């Protein structure tokens, strides 16, 4: 079985595994004052410092949550405070659902947010803008630093969903000039079940999950230490290993060249992208048929975001790029941190075989 669905979840990194095991053995509650509690507290605060250091935040600005979805929801809930919400057209469901009535910043055919359109929207009054750094389906990297400058000029807040970018490109809250940023443990090679909201400065927040006063009153509940420590371990390893992304880009390029010869179209190919992600549309062949065929051949890829769980809805991301006709025929191949050249070679062979069989049937 070859796993090529890293954007749904990355395999656990060894550094994360060690951190999870250590946390599972540290029995205490980080809020307890006795020895066991203090040991857990030290582990929690070390994780906080790691996450802050990896992504250009201060430890006081790091709020641990159960994952990216909760962290995005918390950001919108706590920071918008009556501002008009403006979101990118290709945002993840977590952001779209948190701001259902938001104005939408369109993207161009390359998949990039249209900054002129953003400037026009910002001229209409105080806003909070949500723009993802890397798209989960195409890997397209949005011009977030430029958007941040625009937001600053218009007195708007910028919230950045960096769930897919963190650990794959350099992500720095301070350098971006954004107001808040979200990372997720399991997209960096940590375990499922932890995420973080990173805040510029140290603002007080009205919590989404109330009670107990943990996370300095910004998120109630005993912190999920094993997943949090695992996330920090993964982030450290991923950020230290960013240079390895060039290797993944080589594998990705090889996949794109070969599948292009089989008739596939790469969505977002003209934009700067994550090294590990390619979105391959095979015109006329249904995406779910492709995914099932590839699964039978031992390759784990997806037809879009994992969360929609079962329902195969046409991708809003491709539709926003003007590729609506391809939306039902695109599969996402996302290389995990530990992918090797042989994985890509074997995938190419399987893809060409599948494309040959299924495209012929269409023709």
């Amino acid at each position, binding site marked *: 079985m070859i796993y090529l669905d890293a954007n749904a979840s990355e395999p656990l990194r060894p550094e994360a595994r060690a951190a999870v095991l250590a946390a599972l053995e540290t029995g205490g509650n980080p809020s307890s004052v006795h020895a066991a509690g203090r040991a857990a507290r030290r582990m929690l605060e070390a994780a906080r410092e790691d996450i802050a250091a990896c992504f250009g935040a201060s430890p006081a600005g790091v709020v641990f949550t159960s994952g990216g979805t909760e962290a995005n929801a918390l950001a919108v809930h706590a920071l918008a405070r009556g501002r008009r919400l403006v979101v990118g057209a290709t945002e993840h469901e977590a952001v779209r659902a948190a701001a259902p009535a938001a104005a939408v910043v369109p993207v161009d055919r390359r998949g990039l947010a249209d900054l002129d359109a953003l400037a026009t929207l910002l001229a209409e009054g105080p806003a909070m803008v949500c723009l993802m750094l890397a798209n989960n389906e195409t890997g397209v990297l949005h011009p977030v630093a430029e958007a941040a400058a625009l937001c600053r000029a218009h007195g708007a807040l910028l919230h950045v969903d960096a769930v897919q970018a963190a650990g794959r490109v350099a992500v720095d809250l301070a350098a971006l000039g954004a107001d808040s940023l979200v990372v997720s443990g399991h997209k960096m090679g940590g375990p499922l079940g932890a995420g973080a909201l990173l805040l510029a400065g140290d603002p007080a927040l009205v919590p989404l*999950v*109330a009670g*107990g006063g943990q996370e300095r009153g910004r998120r109630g509940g005993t912190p*999920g230490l094993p997943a949090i420590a695992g996330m920090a371990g993964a982030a450290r390893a991923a950020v230290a290993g960013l240079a390895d992304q060039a290797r993944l880009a080589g594998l990705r390029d090889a996949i794109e060249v070969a599948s292009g010869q089989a008739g596939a179209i790469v969505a977002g190919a003209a934009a700067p992208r994550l090294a590990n992600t390619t979105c391959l549309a095979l015109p006329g062949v249904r995406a779910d048929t492709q995914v099932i065929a590839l699964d039978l051949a031992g390759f784990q890829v997806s037809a879009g975001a994992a*969360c929609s769980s079962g329902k195969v809805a046409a991708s809003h991301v491709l539709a926003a790029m003007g590729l609506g006709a391809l939306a039902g025929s695109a599969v996402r191949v996302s290389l995990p941190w530990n992918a090797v050249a042989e994985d890509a070679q074997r995938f190419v062979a399987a893809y060409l075989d599948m494309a040959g069989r299924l495209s012929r049937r269409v023709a």
Partner: protein
Amino acid sequence: MIQRPNRPIYLDNQATTPCDPRVVQAMLPFFTEHFGNPHSAEHTMGRFAESAVETARGHVAALIGADPREVVFASGATESNNIAIKGAARHAARSGDGRRRVVTVQTEHKCVLEAAADLAAEGFEPVVLPVRPDGTVDPAAVRTALEEAPTLLLSVMAVNNEIGVLQDLTGLAAMAHEAGALFHTDAAQAAGKIPLDVEAMKIDLLSISGHKLYGPKGVGALHVRRRPRVRLAALFSGGGQERGLRSGTLPAPLIVGLGEACRIALVEMEADSRRIAGLRDRLMAGLERAIPGLVLNADSERRIPGNVNLTFPGSDAQAMMAAMPDLCVSTGSACSSAEVEPSYVLTALGLSDAAAARTLRIGIGRFTSPSDIDAAVSMLARAHAMAAPQPSEA
């Protein structure tokens, strides 16, 4: 001279419990080789994680007598309590229900009280009832609160986290239903410790925490009754997981851990309870011999065996804790244990601030041994003697 133990003796099992090694074993493969996203239903690895999540859902349901479809996973009991309380109120308000009252009790966990208080800002009317000196809520007071104004929800915890007292869930649920209200119980301290049956007890909403029953931190569950259907508004939205009630990728390894913890609890609860009650009796016998005048707070019968809440006659609790660094006990709930203010739970029982400041919570668990208890007795007795103000005539 007392030999120092090679690791602290952990008697704070209401703050958190150690993760059972069997739970760790069950989780490990889902952290490592089976790392698929349980919502990636389109491929084999996703489906494998999904099926493990569903097996765990069955174990959680079995522990509380629920249908697996009634179990919603969340990040812990705090989030489950927030979803239950805010979700029930907000759903009612959005569907044009005019009822605004939410009734709860002074000794609830902070997260229940804060969730109810948050609702006040949205136009709801939280009513917080006192408890009797034994820690139980007065049924007559509950009935009055439910009858005074149309009530949406009654939320009363199953077992108190500081004093271990059991509330009469069956009676409270019946009263809530007579008044047309839903009944929610925070069972974070009860699940796996006492038998719970949401069918027989007619509980509509019940919150569970993983790390209070020897599972991992970062996972919990909310039971949401299906017949008659209880409808809730989500706390936050996103990918629409858990039938839209709780978005976000389900943490499969943690859920497998919660499921295994529930499976073990169902099998071992009775034997654990008997053994822990024996240890509790051993602890109390030793302490009462060593420290005359020791007071056990709250009802002495209606309580879980794994908790005692003790007011010491002569010593400040914080000073005692400082004098016994190798014993992990607490002065109150963990979330507020860094605060110097007296526990609001003890205050609600009628303890004076001075008595509350002389009070320790001791939590015995599955991994406590008789020798741990004996060592704890001597540490507590010593710390009490050391920390007590010396009588002037001595």
